[in-house]
């Protein structure tokens, strides 16, 4: 017999949603349902009352002076259609295009992707390289948490019982910067990543690397940053030799497992290939005369 939710509610205020969540530990938020419904069908999740976020104003993408704020209910289709995101967060837009297929993207939300906390979440590496933070709302108030540190282990985040992720905030990149994302999967759509990766490189006024971010998914219990690889690029620049060493260093930052999609060994090798590819691409894009700066 399939597990079924015990009831459904669509509150009209955040406070009502929080009250409903607090009423019973089995009460569960639903947004797009693209992870929850398969989970319920497979018996992995047994929600009590479904608390639907659809009537809450959480689908904004607004550009503030210092950051862009995305409501938790922003779908991956919304991400693809946003001119703000296309201009400043290309890695996030690329990731959105690589998730599921169009009917999934029309329902699946950014907030849900993060809270579901799959190590392979495609929304995570881009948001990590953009230094995103998430706003968590509870009955006792709100807190803002850096996305780095939000994920604890597969399926688990720092979200406390009764808390709802309501917004993702992404600082606006400044100056000369490039970023990109790649997903390696068993096929081009409707697949969970074998490895996914995002990078971001910021240059200073002299053309040296000011900052580098390398984020990897599906190669550890949570999405991770490859900190030593990043430091290498900042200190040595984007030469072919440094890129090769940084890619190898990134592979060493991982702790992948063998699973039905790939072996740990394959994942390590692919991290090296993909990071090298992304860094080489960013070096080319940052060359003077290539429209950056």
């Amino acid at each position, binding site marked *: 017999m399939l597990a*079924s*939710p*015990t*009831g*459904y509610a*669509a509150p009209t205020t955040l406070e009502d949603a929080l009250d409903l969540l607090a009423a019973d530990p089995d009460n569960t938020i*639903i947004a*797009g*349902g*693209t992870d929850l*419904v*398969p989970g319920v*069908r*497979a018996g992995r999740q047994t929600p009590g009352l*479904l608390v*639907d976020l*659809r009537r809450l104003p959480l689908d904004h993408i607004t550009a503030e002076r210092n950051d862009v704020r995305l409501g938790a209910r922003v779908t991956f*289709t919304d991400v693809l259609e946003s001119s703000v995101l296309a201009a400043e967060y290309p890695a996030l837009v690329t990731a959105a295009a690589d998730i*599921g*297929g*169009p*009917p*999934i993207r*029309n*329902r699946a939300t950014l907030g849900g992707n993060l809270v579901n906390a799959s190590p392979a979440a495609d929304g995570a590496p881009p948001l990590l390289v953009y230094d995103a933070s998430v706003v968590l709302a509870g009955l006792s108030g709100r807190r803002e948490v850096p996305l780095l540190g939000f994920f604890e282990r597969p399926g688990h985040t720092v979200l406390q019982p009764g808390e709802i992720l309501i917004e993702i905030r992404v600082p606006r990149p400044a100056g000369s910067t490039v970023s990109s994302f790649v997903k390696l999967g068993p096929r*081009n*759509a*409707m697949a969970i990543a074998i490895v996914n990766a995002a990078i971001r490189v910021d240059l200073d006024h002299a053309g040296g690397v000011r900052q580098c971010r390398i984020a990897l998914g599906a190669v550890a219990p949570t999405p991770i940053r490859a900190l030593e690889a990043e430091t290498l690029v900042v200190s040595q620049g984007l030469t072919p030799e440094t890129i090769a060493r940084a890619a190898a260093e990134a592979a060493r930052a991982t702790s992948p497992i063998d699973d039905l999609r790939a072996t740990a060994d394959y994942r390590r090798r692919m991290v090296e290939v993909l990071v090298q590819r992304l860094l080489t691409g960013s070096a080319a894009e940052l060359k003077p005369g290539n429209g950056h700066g």
Partner: protein
Amino acid sequence: MAELSLRVNGTTHQVKTDPCRMLLSVLREDLGLTGAKEGCGQGDCGSCVVILNGRAVNSCLVYAGQADGAEIVTIEGLAEGEVLHPLQQSFIDRWAFQCGFCTPGMLMTAYGFLLETPHPEADEVRKAISGNLCRCTNYANIVAAVVAAATGGPQP
């Protein structure tokens, strides 16, 4: 139990049901609209796709309660009486189906896609149907049928 208001193919239905049933089940069993199919029940195959508030969605992933007050278009709503929608006619003309099981979902995905991209290239159509599986054809006739429907005939 809940009283749900579903506007389906232009007609508003008041449906009294468990809001935790899937929309696919309500469409098929309560409203007799059996065009949408359950191929996998988990959003992987696309045979259940309908238009919900203007967007193609897997109806097997939508709880009925989530569709309360929504505007829904199913395959039964494409034709106008005996006059087939250009997409349907194009599928017939170009042999874009064999067993027909994937076809309602495929057509609704295409319909939703053309609302957003009225004049697509073939590669865009291929991406648009990436959430719809077909076990009979090689997809090529489907892609050609969607492109052809978009370039001729009235807009959806």
